[in-house]
Structure formats: C-alpha cells, structure tokens
C-alpha cells in the first residue's frame, strides 16, 4: 500500500507538470503581451520589465473590441436561440410521430451532416448574394441550416425518455399542440437543451470562415476582426499578443463559470 501511495504522488506530479506545459502557450502569450517591441526582440522567455497596459489599450481600440464583442454575442445568441427552439420542435414531432416518413426525414437531416462546408459554400454565398442576404440575418439563418441536424438528432434521442401520456393528459386538459410542447415538453428537455446550447455556442462563437464570407468589416465578429487585426500587426508581436489575450478572455470567463456543464455537454455530444 505504501508503494501505491508513492506511485500516486509521482503520477500526481507528472500530471501537474504536464498541465503546466499545456498552459505554457497561454503563459507566454500573456507575459509577452506586456512587453515592448524591443523587449520581445531581446528575449521572449523572461518577464516584462514593467507592467504597462499600453499594448492592451491599443489592441482593444484597434479590435474595436466592444463592437466586435457585441456582434459576436448577438450572432451567437440569436443563432443558438433559434437552433434550440426550432430543433426541439422538430425533434419533438419526429419522435412522437412514429411513421416511416418521420424516419426518412430524420435520416435526411442526419445524412446532411456528412456534407462538408467547402462543398456548399460557393453556391450558398452566390444564392444568398442574389437575394441580398449576405448580412447578419442571413448568417443567423445559415447557422440554423448548418446546426439543426445535430441538434434535432440530440433532441430526438432525448424524447424517448419522455412519456406520451404527458402529451395526452395536456391535450385532455385542453391544451393545443404548441402549448403542450412549450409548457410540458420543452421544460423537460432542459438538460439536452443545455448540451445543444454548449455545442453550438462553442462552434458559432469561434467560427471564422462562414462570417468571413458573409459579413463586412463593420459587423465583424471577434474571430473575423482578429484576422484583420493580425494581418495589420504582422511582426509586431507585442500588440498582436495583447489582442489575442483580449479575444480569449470572454471564453475563459465563460469556461470558469460553466466548466462542469461544458465538459459534460461536450462528452454527451461526442459519444452519441
């Protein structure tokens, strides 16, 4: 037993060292974001001479961070909201209607997940361009199209745990279908809604290629703005790193508050 305990301590130390190695890119990013251009040139491994916020102030302004942050929040929030609402409705009726047709519809949605983005992006942009929908509203609709398949699949799976007698009781009490869904079923789907929300937020918040094809610079989300910003500051690492640090902060804060749900949600989404 003594030996097992010693082994555990060794494993613990290895684990913590590995975690520090894992974090080292973030550490190096933050430390060097405080340096001047000259200090970075002299060495990236040491600590900065003084803690000044100059780099951060300039990066914050050049990223128009408040604007980009709100653009990201609106696009991610609206997209995930409609994905949750419409996918849960679809998962509900597809699970309740046990006909061949329901099976076929579900299969079509699931099969569509096979299509990679690069195989549809050119006609997609061309079609939406023709009807003048290359804007935030068009983008949100596109996220519904790309995101609903996995979400419907997850909702459909979760519906099997919810008894039909609940629907029947609600209908007898005089509720219509939508009321039944909204007041009885949807609240019961909350755990899977959390999973669906997490998976879609991670994806949409970080997505670069689709917004780069749809949005202009005025409506740029954080990743898109980051791309322009980085191009502007090539070889000026002190500013680039300050910008990257700022861009990551919202994600780290979110992770800090919801890490348990995030890890569980991602596990659920992956294993299914």
């Amino acid at each position, binding site marked *: 037993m003594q030996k097992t305990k010693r082994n555990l301590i060794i*494993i613990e130390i290895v684990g913590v060292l590995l975690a520090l190695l894992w974090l080292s890119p973030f550490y190096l990013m933050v430390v060097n974001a405080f340096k001047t251009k000259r200090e970075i040139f002299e060495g*990236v491994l040491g600590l900065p001479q003084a803690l000044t916020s100059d780099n951060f102030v300039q990066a914050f302004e050049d990223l128009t961070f408040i604007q980009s942050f709100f653009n990201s929040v609106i696009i991610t929030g609206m997209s995930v909201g409609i994905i949750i609402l419409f996918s849960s409705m679809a998962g509900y009726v597809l699970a309740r*209607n046990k006909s061949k047709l329901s099976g076929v519809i579900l299969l079509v949605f699931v099969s569509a997940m096979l299509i990679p983005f*690069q195989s549809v992006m050119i*006609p997609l942009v061309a079609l939406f361009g023709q009807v003048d929908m290359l804007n935030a509203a068009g983008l949100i609709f596109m996220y519904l199209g790309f995101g609903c398949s996995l979400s419907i699949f997850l909702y459909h799976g979760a519906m099997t745990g919810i008894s039909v007698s609940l629907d029947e009781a609600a209908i007898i009490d005089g509720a219509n279908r939508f009321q039944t869904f909204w007041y009885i079923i949807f609240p019961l789907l909350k755990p899977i809604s959390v999973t669906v929300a997490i998976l879609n937020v991670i994806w949409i918040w970080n997505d670069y*290629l689709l917004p780069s094809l749809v949005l202009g610079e005025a409506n740029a989300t954080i990743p898109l703005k980051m791309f322009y910003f980085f191009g502007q500051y090539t070889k000026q*690492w002190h500013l680039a790193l300050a910008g990257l640090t700022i861009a*990551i902060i919202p994600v780290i804060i979110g992770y800090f508050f919801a890490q348990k749900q995030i890890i569980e949600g*991602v*596990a659920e989404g992956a294993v299914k």
Partner: protein
Amino acid sequence: MKNRDFTFWLFLTPVILGLSLVVVIPFIYGLFYSFTDWNGIKATTFLGFENYIKLFQDEEFRAALWFTIKFSVASVILLNILGLILALLVTRKLKSSNFLRTIFFMPNLIGGLILGFIWQFIFVSVFDDIGTALGIEALSGWLSTTNTGFWGLVILTCWQMAGYIMIIYIAYLQNIPNELIEASQIDGASSWQRFRNITFPLVAPAFTISMFLTLSTSFKIYDQNLSLTNGGPYNSTQMVAMEIVKTAFNENQMAFAQAKGVIFFLIVAVIAITQVYYNKKREVDM
C-alpha cells in the same frame, strides 16, 4: 399524431427551410455547376467532366490532398495515444484530477484561428529563443520549411483536441466496473496486464469513435491552417479545405473549385460511411 397533421409540418417547417436553403439546394446547384464553366454568376457552357479531369491533373490540389492525408494520419495516431494517456492519468484517484481535466480541455474551447496565431508566436519566437539558449539548432526557423510547418500543424492540433479525445475516453473508462479491477488486483495482475486485458478491450469502442472523429476533423481543418502557416512556404503546407477556398475566392475559378468541393465531399462521406459500417459490425459482434 397523423402524417398529414397540420402541426407536424408546422413544427418542421423552420428546419426544413433552413436545411434546404442552406445545405441541400446549394449542394445540388453546386453539383450541377461543377459540370459547367460557372463563374459565380452565370454558366454559359456545359463542360461534362472537364473540371474533374483538370482537377486530377492539378498539381496544387494533388499536393494539398496528399499533405492532408499525411497530416490526418499523424494527427489521428498521436491524438488517440495522447488522449488515452490523459484519460488514464486523470481517472486515477488524484487530488488534482478535476483541475487537470479543466486544463487539458481548455484549448478546445478557443477557436482554431486564435490558437494558430498564438502558436505561430511559440514556434517562430519562443522556439527560436529556446534553441539559441540551449544551442539546439533544430528549434530555429520553424514554420519556414514544409517539414516544420507539418509538425507545427500536428502539434497545434494535438494540443487543441487531445482534451476532447480525453473526455471521450473518460466516459468509457468510468463505465468499467470496479469489481473487475478489484478482482484482477486480488488475482495479482500487474498494472500492465490490467490495462492490456481489462481496460483496453472495454475502451475499444471509444477507439472507433474517436478515431473517426479525429480523422474527419483533421481532414476538414481550415482555420488552424490559415492562421499558423497560411499554406506556406510556397503552398507546401496547404490542406484541401484551404485549397478549395483559395481556388474559389482568390483565383475566382468557381466551377473548378466546386468540382474540388464535390470530390472533398466524396472523400469525407466515404470516411463517415466506413465508420457507420464498423459501428454496426461492432454492435453485431457484441
């Protein structure tokens, strides 16, 4: 609920519209246009398989495809080894177990574009400084050669995704009944024997899942490619996804790029269908 029930269709309308307008119709349009000289606005002539013949003779596309295959193989192997090691590590009774999970998973939440920029700094500046300090020449000039660009992308992908694969393995490791482990301890099995004969066979399904998951993800990588190497030097680290975007939006060869997109779809579909086949087979075996 009857098939022609009004609510049935009402509840499905938004997602059917979404999927049709965003995925299905563009896909069918794209398939049609890949046989023409479409320039993004109009198509004047039907070319038959000309774009497809041209595509297989296109050095750049072939190079990108080959690079993507090599990258995917390296990433899939390393990611699964690393993910399994991390999972085995954090499922021991460690005090820091939860903390370690949180840390290893963290890079997965941040976008590939941002992570690629951070690692560009690590490879170019930090590696160079460490190399100079320790006198290791191999650490200088990263990302300026095809080889270092390749391994740079592999390292970035492993660092970003290992925590995700770890979580999949954890889910399966936790399903191993404790009695099995205890029984083997009483029987005097060494930790290697325990891993080989109990843990490994029970975690095998996770292997299939994460192998295909990592394969299809690494095959479709774009953001990391763009921000870490941007395909350089001389397009030698360019992957298929990026090559298609460039053909379309930098070179404006829409129909040609669309044909590449169709081939890309076929490859990804074959990977996915193989996975479904294996999963079905496994279920039968059990």
